[in-house]
């Protein structure tokens, strides 16, 4: 461990704000990148399932 105490680790020798801001933004970007395709997939499934249901209904009515 490079730092002597946890408080020092957070402070990063006066640069804490910059370092933690960078890591925070990175975490946000990575999480957004992971969530976006998952949500996209969910939406696609819902939309296609609805389409299929409607097609089936139309077929049974006709």
């Amino acid at each position, binding site marked *: *461990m*490079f*730092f002597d105490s946890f408080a020092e*680790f957070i402070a*990063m*020798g*006066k*640069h*804490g704000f*910059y*370092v933690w*801001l*960078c*890591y925070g*933004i*990175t975490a946000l*970007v*990575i999480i*957004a*990148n*992971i969530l*976006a*395709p*998952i949500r*996209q*997939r969910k939406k*696609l*499934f819902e939309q*296609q*399932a609805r389409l*299929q249901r409607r097609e089936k209904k139309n077929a049974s009515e006709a």
Partner: protein
Amino acid sequence: MWEALKRLYHRMGSPKWFYEISARWLPWFAIPAALCLIVGTVWGLAFAPADYQQGNSFRIIYIHVPAAILAQGAYAMMAIAGGIFLIWRMKMAAWVAAAIAPIGASFCFLALITGAIWGKPTWGTWWVWDARLTSMLLLLFLYFGVMALQKAMETDDTSAKAGAILSLVGLVNIPIIKYSVEWWNTLHQPATLKLTEESTMAMEMLIPLLIMIVGFYLLFATLIFMRTRNEVLWHERKKSWVKKLIEAEK
């Protein structure tokens, strides 16, 4: 060996095969990616020594450099995938290219914003027209162009082709842009303190950086798989295997 590669290539062209195999491959990329990113972050933040000039702010290197490398690599991959699509008419390649664009742009943005934040303690201002930051900014512009074009056309096929042509033109231009920006930078008083200087890096600093680069690449591969799977489902939504898949989900 060659035959095996050729077989893999032809199978890659089959969306259904890709969809099935990628489900099995995903964890083999996602889990090592998470491990590398966690180990690299902890090591870089808590155990690596501080830089003798920049102090602890140098720890930003562990995300800035991998993001920058990835952003450039992703553009090249996108252009190559586009080229494969144009030459061999392999649809999967076009979908991969469409999957890469937003991921690459987001890493490019990440490299820019971490560079700017890092610049504040190093240079005293948020933005300096430093050669690397400037060429990253121009790379982001190139991504914007490709993404705008991919969305602009009426049919999927033409927009994929247009995006592929533009990304290939951009790929040829990237070295020229980089060279001209570096040359321009040497004329206008370059920042005396460079953000990154590879030559002076000690081993204890370098190893976590390498781990982070590997982690970012694995994460990138995972994200491409996830997005390409969605592209496959969307473009093949009228095919029976996708319809069955959706029916089974309910």
